[in-house]
């Protein structure tokens, strides 16, 4: 049976510590290039600070982890890629990016409303010796291609290998946990199989507090958010004009 991996991110639990970002970068062999800026760096997982726009004591801030939303319907990046370098994996529902087939036209980046795609503006490089600390099973992306979060596909792969080794069809959910989920100290990021109705995460997506970013453009992301705070929920549709970047 095919899975639909997804997330529910509880924004009320997110303290914006950034552990998920570092864990993600470390797991996925993202180089830390000094020349990269907040507009040219690779941050497959990016926690963004938002506020209710107030400057006085009533000011509230929250943090929104932004990663590939794994859009399910009319996946914007898939339909635009001229050479099938992006495809939705039928078996997992994960939007897969194939860097070795990407020619770096960046059309998918203009198509993604969540700015969850990143371009390798530089050759990947590490300080002398640090390449020994690269995490195995995740290939380093070359300059000039687009990349994004693929829900730690390397981990899924090893989980599948483990299952195959044990002669099992299905992977043990405990074996496949993306780095950011594993890293979150407050358990704000929850990961599960949305196709499985018994999965607590899949059930959480139906809670009244759950919402998806820009739901109305109809891309049906598999990454959900939830919050009890109304001003945070105003994110759900693009009309949350009162919400400003922190």
């Amino acid at each position, binding site marked *: 049976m095919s899975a639909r991996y997804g997330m529910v991110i509880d924004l009320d639990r997110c303290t914006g510590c*950034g552990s998920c970002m570092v864990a993600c970068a470390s797991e996925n062999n993202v180089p830390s290039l000094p020349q990269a800026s907040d507009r040219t760096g690779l941050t497959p997982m990016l*926690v963004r600070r938002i506020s209710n726009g107030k400057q006085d004591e009533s000011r509230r801030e929250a943090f929104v982890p932004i990663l590939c939303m794994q859009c399910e319907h009319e996946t914007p990046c898939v339909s635009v890629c001229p050479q099938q370098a992006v495809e939705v994996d039928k078996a997992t529902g994960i939007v897969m990016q194939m860097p*070795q087939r990407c020619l770096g036209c960046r059309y998918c980046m203009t198509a993604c409303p969540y700015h969850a795609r990143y371009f390798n503006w530089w050759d*990947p490089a590490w300080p002398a010796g*640090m390449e020994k600390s690269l995490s195995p099973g995740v290939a380093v992306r070359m300059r000039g291609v687009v990349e994004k979060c693929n829900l730690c596909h390397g981990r899924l792969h090893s989980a599948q290998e483990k299952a195959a080794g044990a002669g099992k069809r299905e992977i043990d959910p405990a074996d496949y946990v993306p780095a950011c989920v594993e890293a979150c100290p407050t358990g704000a990021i929850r990961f599960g199989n949305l196709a499985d109705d018994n999965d607590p995460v899949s059930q959480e997506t139906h809670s009244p507090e759950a919402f998806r970013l820009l739901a109305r453009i109809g891309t049906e992301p598999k990454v959900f958010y939830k919050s009890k705070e109304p001003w945070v929920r105003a994110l759900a549709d693009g009309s949350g004009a009162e919400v400003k970047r922190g």
Partner: protein
Amino acid sequence: MKVTRRDWLVWGAGATAGVVLSPVPWKLLGDTSIWTQNWPWIPQPARGPLEVKASACTLCPNGCGLRVRMAGGWPVGLAGLRSHPVSQGALCPLGFGAHQLIWHPARLRAVRHRGGASSWDEARAAFVKACSEGPVGIVDGFPGRAASSVFESFAQKRNGAYRAVLGPESQALTPYEAWTRVPARNLGFDLENARTIVSFGAPLLDGWGTPGRFSHLWAERAAGQSDPQLRLIHVETSLSTTGSRAWRRIVIRPGSEAALASGIARVLIEDKLVPARGPMPLLTLSQAAEQSGISADAIRELAHTMVASQPVIAIANDDNPAIAALNVILGAVGSRGGIVQRSKPKHSTISTADLRDMRAVLIDSSMPWEFVPETRAEVFRFAAWDGGPTRADWLLPTPALLEDLTDMPTAPASAIETYAIAAPLVAPPTGTLSAAQFLAEIDPAAAPVEKIIRARCDELLRGRAGTVHAQESTPVTNIATAEKLEEQLRNGGVWVGEPPRAAALRCDLKEWPAERPSKPSARSSAWAAPVLPPLATKLYEESNLLQPVPRRNS
């Protein structure tokens, strides 16, 4: 036949057409494009058996449990160790990239003397000479380790000074030393049982204490709830992460935490919200309001809110006595969910001798790089990385995390006593020595770290108390020998003591301590390494999440 321009034209046209129609250019195109997919200079991840080891993080005194993924004999990923009773599987953002610190460009690899190249022999000679000429001071960032006792005894022998510099979490506990006659290192905040926590600027959700500890509490009992089991009231001067996530947020004038505390205490006593347990603050409510910049009603309202859901505890971000006194008034000292004594005081003779009088000062690598001793003595600075300009005559390269054998005693401010051992997982670069090893070479008679650790395991075993938390937890009584215990600890197990006996702590506060404004803490966070993991640096630069810190080395 004569070659005319016409012939050239014809041949040229023919040649171009021919080449384009031949497979050659297309084949070349294919090969080059495949070549671009793996440029020779793109680093490839190491192949090799993947193994997972458990250890403890030694970059700050909190010693979070580490799950280290190793490939080809090198650490390739860090994660939190779920079985760790305090950190509970969490790490700080810096921790997740810490395995790359081994390769940080700023890594110290050779002895340096006043900027110039030097050698261990020269350094040793200089230090021995200094010792013969006068007393030596030793500064330690993580007191209570085996290394600390090496320092302590060495300093004692040379009738020098051993100085432990504490982080803000521990500093907040120092005022109680005088009132309870229990050293701060034996006290802790019993956050786990508190119902209301008032932090006076303590970044509880942003690098205060063991990262996993409070964030778990908060996430489980407070996050997003309108009437949470755990009420977090954050008093601050400007919006912080903790403030933005707190249940209530109070903004006051910088440095007026003490005044606010006094104001609250006065309200508590005047409104009989607490049984009078201590002296009346010197400040009047209006003065407190005037100083802290919030209305008297707001202070009164705050006081009422504090006691509405008890136990309640106030946490300072420094050693401000007024806030400690507030806890006394609240009856939080020695009570469940308040300030508790987690362990019996060990006989420790911390000399109060001043570093100024020292001939030489040895600074352990556990000290934050910013620390500069107020002395004219010859400074021997141990560090694994060069954090930039500092006042040190000798820069002595030490092993980094995962390279050195260290034991990690109870984390600052923890309510329960713990003991862990970080065993070296990779060999340190040649030419590095820890401060303890350095001293051991000079004084072979003294017990080395290994011996002391063994002795402590033995002590724990004889204490017959506590449990070792690993994949499964084992009571110490079920462990046969000290060797076994040490082995378990070296493999990432954590010894956890008995839960604290709260009532055992008696506290008498005669009169309200003299008011003094809170001073911003010397150590903003517990992070002690001179440099940040490159990925953390990246995080600072490529997100608007955290402000770049001056310590950053790019």
